[in-house]
């Protein structure tokens, strides 16, 4: 059972304050948010930072609920994904990982690269352009989640797509919210 200790040590060394793996739904999203909120409240975090962290968490979690691609090999259930929050001395890190079909990777990567190429004003313009022209998708998204996360974070979105198997990659996203920017 050494893996328990290993997992514990990993969480300590990565400064993780919350990890959730499993089936992501609106209900589990609400539970995760309320747990994370209690944690932020009890640590006495500044309210403007708390709001930004909450904001990024909601978008990250709802992205997984709406977009995580289903794995059909029987071993991994639909929406099997992971959500983590790290708390370092100078920032919070909101991280997600979820399966994505290989054919969807390049489109997502292009969208993230575009967002990362923009500065504050560029992101604001992109947000306004999308909100004016978008319609809510079948999945219930407005196509604004990553733009909003980048705006609230004020930093570049970090992402990777390690290969899972012949059909899927695992989309890893890390969004940093600085703690000392106010």
């Amino acid at each position, binding site marked *: 059972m050494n893996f328990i200790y290993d997992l514990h040590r990993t969480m300590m060394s990565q400064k993780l304050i919350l990890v959730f793996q499993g089936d992501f739904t*609106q209900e589990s999203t*609400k539970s995760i948010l*309320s747990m994370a909120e209690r944690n932020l409240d009890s640590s006495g975090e500044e*309210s*403007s930072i708390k*709001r*930004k962290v*909450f*904001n990024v968490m*909601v*978008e990250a979690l*709802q992205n997984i*609920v709406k977009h995580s691609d289903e794995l059909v090999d029987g071993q991994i259930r639909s929406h099997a994904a992971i959500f983590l929050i790290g708390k370092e001395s100078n920032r919070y890190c909101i991280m997600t990982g979820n399966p994505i079909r290989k054919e969807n990777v390049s489109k997502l990567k292009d969208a993230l690269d575009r967002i990362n190429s923009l500065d504050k004003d560029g992101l*604001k313009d992109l*947000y*306004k352009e999308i*909100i*004016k022209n*978008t*319609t*809510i998708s079948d999945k*219930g*998204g*407005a196509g*604004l*989640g990553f*733009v*909003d996360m980048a705006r*609230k974070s004020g930093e570049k979105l970090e992402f990777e797509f390690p290969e899972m198997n012949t059909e899927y990659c695992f989309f890893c996203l890390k969004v940093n919210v600085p703690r000392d920017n106010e």
Partner: protein
Amino acid sequence: MEILNLEGTEDTPKIILDKKNGIFEISGRSLPEDSAEFYRPVLEWIEKYSADANPSTEFVFKLEYFNTASSKLILDVLSALEDIKSMKILWYFHEDDEDMEEAGQEFSELVEIPFEFKTY
């Protein structure tokens, strides 16, 4: 005209739309699972109201948080209010919540309605 009164929950805002008493308010948190479905009755109510609106209307947004899917629907609500005579938006934000203030400013740039900004 019927009053639309929705109690707020942890993921949906409190909404009161009351023509007779002149109360028009959306407040709290908005991150519903299906934002289009949640805001449908609001948009329908506004459509009926616009046919026989009060001489002037002050519509209050006092949101603590909304997700991006809700932001699209909030824009839809504002667009539906655009053609109503003597319409004014009162956009409340917590005094240290710059993001909510900025969100209100962005909405005000997207529709042709006067906005008044207030802190709480």
